[in-house]
C-alpha cells in the first residue's frame, strides 16, 4: 500500500523527528508485559533497544509491532532469540513505546500493516540479536581469558569449547549480562545461516495463546484503570455530517450518567459503566447537520463510477511497449477482447469493536488501546491537545482484529478529548452498529480490461482502466495526490505476465463515503479483475488455464508456485463429474500465491469441495503461523467473494451488524490445504493479507469451469449464488 516516494519519506522523517526522542535504549522503555513464557523480578540489563537480560536469565524481547492475530509478537522476537541463542522458554515479550528505534526501517514510520512487519524488520532484528550475541560472547571470553572465536551461545548459555574438544564450560546469560552491556556493539555482527536455525523455520508455541484460552488476554475492551469511566459514542449517521445540537438534560439523571461530551463528528455519553452509557445514549436527544453527502446512495455511487469509466479524464500510470489504449486496439490486432469487473465496498468488521482508553491531564495524555498506528496516534493527539509529542504516551493492548482499521486515530482522539472534558480516565467504545456504520471502507472498484490478441488468442497488448476512490488518504496522505494513489494500483504495475504492450489508466474517484486500507488493499480488486480476465483469455483460446498462464509467466518463483499448486491439487486429472476447478496466481505483498478451487453448483447453491493453496514467502519463519494466516485469509476470501457487502442509502451505511454485513461461517468452510515453497531469505514476503487475493478469482474461475457462466462482479450473492 505504501510506495517509497521522496515526498513521503521526507514527511515521515519530519513526523518522526516531531515525535521526539533519540534512540531509546533499554532503560527508557516502560515495560508493558503482554505475553510471556517466563517471568522475572530481577534487574534487567539492556543490551540494545530490542532486548534485555535479567540476572536470572530471562530475556526480554521487544515487539515493535502490534499483535492482531498475525503472530508477529511471536515471530519477530523469535528472530532476535534465534540470533542471540536464547532459551525460548525463558523469554518474555513487551510492546515497544513510540520511538524512532522501533520505526519500520523501510519507511521510518511506526505502524503495523501492509503485511510488511516481517519483510521490513527481519534483517534489522537478525543484526540486533547477533550484535547482542557477540557482546555476550566477548564478555564471557574476556572473563575466561580465551578467544571469542572459541565461544558460542546456545539455549540461554554462552559456551567455551575450543575446536576438537568434546567438553566445554558455560556461563548463563544472566551471569555475563552486566559485562556484556559494557562491550561496544559490533558494527557488522555475523548473521546465522538458515541451516543453523533452531527456532526459526519451525512452529513455535505462540506467546499470546495461553492468555487467549483462559480469558486472561487483555484486548482493548478488557483494559481497565482505577477510577476509569466509560463513554458510548454516537456520530453523525450521514458520512461527513456533524452534530447540530444535543440536550444533555435528556439523559442526566439516568443510572450512572456522569456527563455528555461533544466529540469531533459526534457526541458521547459518559457513565460509570459502559452498559449504562450505551443505554443512556439511546435516550439522548440529538440532532445532526447532514452535510453535503445526504443524497449518496448505492445508485448515485454506481452512476459516478460508470460516468468515470465512460469519461475521458485518466491518468496513465503505466506504459510498456507501445502501451496502446483499449480504444486504439481495434484494427491493430487479430482480435480485440474487452471485459468489465467490479468489486464491492467492504467493512473491516473486526470482532472487537472499536475502542480506546485515554487519560488526559494538564501534564499530558496516555492512551491504552488496540492500535495499529501508534505513531500516527501520538502525532494526532499531540496536535489536537496542543501537547509536545513526548507528552503523549501510547500503550498497546492486544487487538481483536485490525485489518487496517486500527491504523487511524479517530477513536483514540475522541477518547482523549472525553477524558480531558470529564477529568478522568475514560474508555470510549463504539457499539457494533456505530463501528460498522463508521467504517473507513475498502473502496469499491470498477475495471475495464482490453486485450489485443494474436491469431492463436495470446495477448500481445493489454490495457487496464481502473476507477477507484483513495486507499491511502487517511494513513499515508503524502503519497496521495489529486489524481493518484499508489495503493489503488497494486498488482497492476508489477504483473509477472510477459505481455509486450501494457498500459494502465487510473481515475481516482472522489466519493461521499470514507474509504481506506483494508486487508488486501489494491491487490484484492485488481487481482480479481486480472486473474478473471486471464482466465477468460485462456478459455477463449481453448487452452488449459494452467498452461496459458505457464506460458506467460517468466518469474521463476511464480512458475514454481504455479506448478506446485497444480501438482498438489491434481489439476491434471479430470475434475469429478459436475465439478469445475478454477485457478488464480499472483505476487502480492512480496509473496507469490496461487489457489485452486474445486466446486459444483446446483440451483445456485455452490458446494466447494476442496481448496488448495501454495505460497512462496521466501522462508516461512513460523510455518504454522503462516499456514493459519493463509487458511484464515482463504476463509475471509470466501466471505468477501460470496457474502460481504457494504452499501449506502441517504448518505448512511446500510449494514450495521453481522446480520447485514455477512462473513463466512463454519458450515461454509471447505477443506483447505496450504503448502509452502521455500525460496530462501533473500525474498521475504508477507502472509497477513495475501490469502483472499487469489482465492476470490479462483472461485470465479471455478464457477465458470463448473457452469459456463462468468461472474464479473462481487459479491456473488448479487447473482443469487449462495455457499452450501
Amino acid at each position, binding site marked *: 500500500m505504501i510506495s517509497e516516494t521522496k515526498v513521503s519519506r521526507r514527511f515521515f522523517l519530519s513526523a518522526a523527528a516531531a515525535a521526539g526522542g533519540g534512540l531509546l535504549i533499554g532503560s527508557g522503555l516502560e515495560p508493558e508485559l503482554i505475553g510471556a513464557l517466563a517471568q522475572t523480578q530481577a534487574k534487567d540489563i539492556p543490551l540494545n533497544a530490542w532486548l534485555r537480560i535479567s540476572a536470572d536469565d530471562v530475556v526480554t524481547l521487544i515487539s515493535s509491532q502490534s499483535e*492482531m*492475530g498475525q*503472530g508477529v509478537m511471536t515471530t519477530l522476537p523469535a528472530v532476535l532469540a534465534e540470533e542471540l541463542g536464547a532459551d525460548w522458554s525463558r523469554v518474555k515479550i513487551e510492546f515497544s513505546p513510540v520511538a524512532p528505534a522501533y520505526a519500520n526501517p523501510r519507511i521510518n514510520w511506526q505502524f503495523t500493516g501492509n503485511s510488511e512487519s516481517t519483510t521490513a524488520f527481519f534483517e534489522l532484528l537478525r543484526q540486533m540479536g547477533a550484535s547482542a550475541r557477540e557482546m555476550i560472547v566477548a564478555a564471557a571470553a574476556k572473563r575466561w581469558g580465551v578467544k571469542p572465536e572459541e565461544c558460542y551461545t546456545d539455549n540461554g548459555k554462552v559456551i567455551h569449547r575450543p575446536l576438537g574438544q568434546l567438553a566445554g564450560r558455560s556461563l548463563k546469560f544472566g551471569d555475563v549480562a552486566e559485562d556484556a552491556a559494557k562491550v561496544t556493539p559490533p558494527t557488522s555482527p555475523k548473521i546465522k545461516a538458515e541451516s543453523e536455525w533452531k527456532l526459526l523455520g519451525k*512452529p513455535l*508455541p*505462540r506467546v*499470546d*495463546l*495461553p492468555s*487467549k*484460552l*483462559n*480469558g*486472561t*488476554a*487483555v*484486548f482493548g*475492551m*478488557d483494559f481497565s484503570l482505577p477510577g476509569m469511566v466509560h463513554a458510548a459514542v454516537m456520530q453523525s449517521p450521514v458520512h461527513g455530517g456533524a452534530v447540530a445540537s444535543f440536550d444533555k438534560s435528556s439523559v442526566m439523571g439516568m*443510572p450512572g450518567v456522569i456527563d455528555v461530551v461533544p466529540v469531533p463528528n459526534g457526541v458521547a455519553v459518559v457513565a460509570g*459503566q*459502559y*452498559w449504562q452509557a450505551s443505554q443512556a445514549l439511546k435516550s439522548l436527544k440529538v440532532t445532526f447537520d447532514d452535510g453535503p453527502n445526504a443524497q449518496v446512495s448505492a445508485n448515485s455511487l454506481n452512476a459516478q463510477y460508470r460516468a468515470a469509466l465512460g469519461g475521458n479524464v485518466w491518468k496513465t500510470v503505466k506504459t510498456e511497449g507501445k502501451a496502446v489504449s483499449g480504444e486504439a486496439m481495434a484494427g491493430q490486432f487479430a482480435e480485440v477482447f474487452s471485459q468489465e469487473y467490479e468489486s464491492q465496498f467492504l467493512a473491516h*468488521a*473486526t*470482532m*472487537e*469493536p472499536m475502542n480506546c482508553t485515554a487519560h488526559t491531564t494538564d501534564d499530558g495524555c496516555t492512551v491504552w488501546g488496540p492500535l495499529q498506528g501508534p505513531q500516527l496516534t501520538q502525532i494526532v493527539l499531540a496536535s489536537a491537545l496542543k501537547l509536545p509529542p513526548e507528552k503523549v504516551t501510547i500503550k498497546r493492548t*492486544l*487487538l*481483536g*482484529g*485490525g*485489518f487496517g482499521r486500527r491504523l487511524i486515530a479517530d477513536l483514540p482522539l475522541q477518547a482523549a478529548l472525553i477524558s480531558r472534558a470529564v477529568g478522568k480516565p475514560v474508555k470510549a467504545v463504539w*457499539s*457494533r452498529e456505530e463501528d460498522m456504520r463508521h467504517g473507513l471502507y475498502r473502496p469499491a472498484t470498477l475495471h475495464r480490461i482490453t486485450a489485443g490478441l494474436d491469431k492463436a488468442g495470446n495477448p500481445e497488448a493489454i490495457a487496464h482502466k481502473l476507477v477507484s476512490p483513495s486507499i491511502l488518504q487517511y494513513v499515508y496522505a503524502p503519497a496521495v495526490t489529486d489524481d493518484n494513489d499508489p495503493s489503488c494500483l497494486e498488482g497492476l504495475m508489477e504483473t509477472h505476465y510477459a505481455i509486450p504492450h501494457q498500459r494502465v489508466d487510473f481515475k481516482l474517484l472522489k466519493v461521499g463515503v470514507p474509504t481506506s486500507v483494508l486487508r488486501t488493499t489494491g491487490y484484492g480488486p485488481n487481482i480479481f479483475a486480472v486473474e478473471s480476465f486471464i482466465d477468460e483469455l485462456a478459455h477463449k483460446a481453448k487452452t488449459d488455464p494452467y498452461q496459458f498462464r505457464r506460458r506467460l509467466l517468466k518469474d521463476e518463483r511464480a512458475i514454481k508456485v504455479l506448478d506446485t499448486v497444480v501438482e498438489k491439487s491434481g489439476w491434471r486429472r479430470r475434475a469429478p463429474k459436475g465439478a469445475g476447478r478454477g485457478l488464480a496466481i499472483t505476487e502480492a505483498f512480496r509473496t507469490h500465491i496461487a489457489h485452486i478451487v474445486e466446486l459444483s453448483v446446483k440451483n445456485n447453491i455452490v458446494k466447494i469441495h476442496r481448496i488448495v493453496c501454495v505460497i512462496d514467502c521466501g522462508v516461512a519463519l513460523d510455518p*504454522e*503461523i503462516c499456514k*493459519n*494466516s493463509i*487458511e*484464515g*485469509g*482463504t*476463509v*475471509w476470501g470466501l*466471505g468477501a467473494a460470496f457474502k460481504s457487502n457494504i452499501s449506502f442509502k441517504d448518505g448512511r451505511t446500510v449494514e450495521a*451488524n*453481522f*446480520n447485514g454485513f455477512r*462473513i*463466512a*461461517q*463454519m*458450515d*461454509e*468452510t471447505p*477443506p*483447505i490445504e496450504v503448502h509452502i515453497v521455500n525460496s530462501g531469505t533473500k525474498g521475504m514476503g508477507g502472509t497477513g493479507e495475501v*490469502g483472499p487475493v487469489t482465492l476470490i478469482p479462483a472461485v470465479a474461475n471455478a464457477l465458470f469451469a463448473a457452469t459456463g457462466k462468468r461472474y464479473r462482479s462481487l459479491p456473488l450473492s448479487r447473482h443469487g449464488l449462495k455457499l452450501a
Partner: protein
Amino acid sequence: MKQIDFSVNGKAVRVEAEPDKPLLWVLREDLGLTGAKYGCGIAICGCCAVHLDGDAIRSCVTPVSRVEGKKVTTVEGLSTDLSHPVQRAWLEIQVPQCGYCQSGQMMSAACLLAQKANPTDADIDDAMSGNLCRCGTYPRIRRAIHRAAEIAAKGGR
C-alpha cells in the same frame, strides 16, 4: 436495581443490577470476568457465549434476571491452567489468531462435546456455525474439536 443470586464458575455470587441488564455486562462490569466478549450485542456472532446450567447461551441478550439461582460457566471456568480438553486441543492445534472470538468458540465447543462425546463434521457445523471468526480459524476449530474429543476419551477430563 434488584438483588440477584446465581453461581459463576462454581462460586456463589450476588449482584445488584437492573433486571434487564444483559448477563454479559454483569459478568464483565460487575464481576470483573472479561473472558466473555462483546461482539454484536444481538446474539449473532457468539463472542459472548457462556454456559447456563450446561447449555451454551448468548449472554449479550440474556437478562441477568433469567440466571437467578442458576449456574453460569465462563471461559475462565473451563480451567485457569489450560487443562480442559478444549483448551488443550486449542493450544495444540494453535487455533487462535486475534483470539477475540475464541472464548465463545471454546464455550460452544465444550457444550457440543458435553452432549456428543465424538461429534461428526455435521455436528460441528450445526453447533458452531453461529460463532463467527473474522480471522477465519474455522478449519483449525474443526480439527481442535475432533482433537478435544480424543483427549477427553483418553481421560483428559
